């Protein structure tokens, strides 16, 4: 019973707790794996991978803002073939936590190729479809701002994927519910939300943008209220489970996301502030549940909008 207290079951993912890293903040697991046992986590989420190997944007690629940070990494990654050949076997050998691979691309064909390769590799339990990366010139964000394009992409990827597909939504839209509904209809198995908001910082002394890429993606506690609002809205309108993210730092933040309607959460920027953030959150959760008189984390999901008494 107690072991089950934090467990959450989602399509393709049997999570022993609802905590996982956010894509791009955890590379391919090795670095944090040197700090703690990754099997403590609900799942391991990999950095976005594309068809071809990419270097990404010039530096500086990150800068700080009030309670947040901007990043413009630009999808640096070794390409899906090397990922499958070199990185995944080692990762899967070392850890038992489910692995979620994050798929990015510039064309429909790219996405499909990458998704197919990853799904066929047998190493991953689910795919996360990054249709919301603000830091690349071609592809990325466009796929996530137009409901129709997002739906088409979802369909195509679903067609080649044997594992469940979670679509990662962009907050840089007028109507995120419309995008969520579109990908739900197109067959998505779940949603991840939110990716970063497009932001910018200018260096007063040089009078130029701080990031070499000019704009970047805003993450961290600053965006948490936006993430909570979007999950609150979307979870009431679609039936898909949501992996929530955006500024999570503490166990209370996790509970807030679950209450808003997320079924699990991902931690990104907070890993940079405290490299042991995720183990610390997992450790703190049971006590928080006790204080709230909650037996299982699943009881919290969507409770901020569900009529009292239902669970």
């Amino acid at each position, binding site marked *: 019973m107690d072991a089950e207290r934090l467990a959450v079951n989602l399509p393709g993912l049997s999570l022993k707790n609802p905590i996982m890293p956010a894509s791009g903040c955890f*590379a391919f697991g090795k670095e944090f794996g040197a700090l703690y046992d990754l099997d403590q986590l609900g799942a391991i989420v990999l950095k976005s991978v594309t068809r071809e190997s990419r270097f990404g944007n010039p530096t500086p*690629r*990150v800068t700080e803002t009030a309670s947040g940070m901007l990043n413009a990494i630009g999808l640096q990654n070794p390409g899906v073939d090397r990922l499958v050949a070199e990185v995944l076997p080692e990762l899967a050998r070392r850890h038992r936590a489910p692995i979620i691979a994050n798929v990015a691309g510039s064309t429909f064909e790219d996405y499909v190729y990458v998704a197919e390769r990853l799904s066929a590799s047998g190493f991953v339990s689910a795919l996360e479809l990054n249709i919301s990366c603000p830091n690349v010139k071609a592809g990325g964000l466009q796929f996530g701002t137009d409901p129709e394009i997002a739906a088409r992409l979802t369909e195509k990827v679903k067609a080649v994927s044997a594992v469940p597909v979670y679509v990662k939504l962009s907050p840089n839209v007028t109507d995120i519910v419309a995008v969520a509904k579109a990908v739900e209809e197109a067959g998505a198995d779940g949603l991840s939300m939110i990716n970063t908001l497009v932001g910018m910082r200018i260096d007063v002394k040089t009078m130029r943008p701080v990031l070499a890429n000019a704009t970047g993606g805003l993450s961290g506690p600053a965006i948490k209220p936006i993430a909570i609002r979007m999950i609150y809205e979307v979870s009431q309108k679609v039936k898909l489970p949501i992996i929530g993210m955006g500024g999570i730092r503490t166990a209370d933040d996790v509970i807030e996301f679950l209450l808003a309607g997320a079924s699990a959460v991902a931690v990104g*920027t907070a890993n940079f502030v405290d*490299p042991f953030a995720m183990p610390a959150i997992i450790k703190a959760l049971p006590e928080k549940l006790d204080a709230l008189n909650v037996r299982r984390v699943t009881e919290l999901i969507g409770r901020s909008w569900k009529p009292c008494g239902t669970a």
Partner: protein
Amino acid sequence: MMRVERMTVVANRSIARNIFELTVTGELARRVQAPGQFVHIRPEAAGTLLRRPISICRVDGDQKRLTVVFRAEGSGTKALAACRVGDALDVFGPLGNGFPTDRLASGAHALIVGGGIGVPPLYELSKRLAARGVAVMHVLGFRSACDVFYEDAFSALGPTWIATEDGSRGFKGRVTDVIAGEGLRYDAMFACGPRPMLQALAAMRGDKPLFLSLEERMGCALGACFACVVRVKDDETGTAYRKICADGPIFEAGEVVF
């Protein structure tokens, strides 16, 4: 192994214009493996989100003490400057690879070149080289006399030349002027400072090895976020890279593009 620790401030003082020398104590100090490694400090009082990477300037494992020297510039380093003895400081480290100290035999000559706030990590390096019997020379460049620090400390280890841009102390000019002007000869060079200085040193090093320390804006300082990459020299794939935080911050000139 690296760790996160609440270390205790045991000393903090200004040693030059806006330059502070901060010493903390804790288990982490025992873990430092090589000069040139750095720590990632969270200046909580500043209310800033990210940590700040700062090189380790000296370390005493037995005493569990570690000293950093930094310039109070933005909100984070200003908050560090305001730390009082007894305060707790959230430190992550030690990080990075550090300078190699085993590439020179006893009796060989090491030229150690620092520019401004690049000087600190060179102190522990010089101490360790000197302890191995390497003959160390130092050329340290600063803007002006009031920016100079650690002159005596370096002088105690080996001959030390100071250069200032305005000539208000030591030689007027740049570190490269001193090296050329004095005709300094060496078996290997070690350097930390602004990129133009590093580039000039790389250009003048001839066939001698040059180990240099690079800086970049960092997120994780652990190798997980890809914020701090540099390109690899003569890379035909176009996608080869090194992470300054994890593969560096020390590289041999010729390895990476900077």
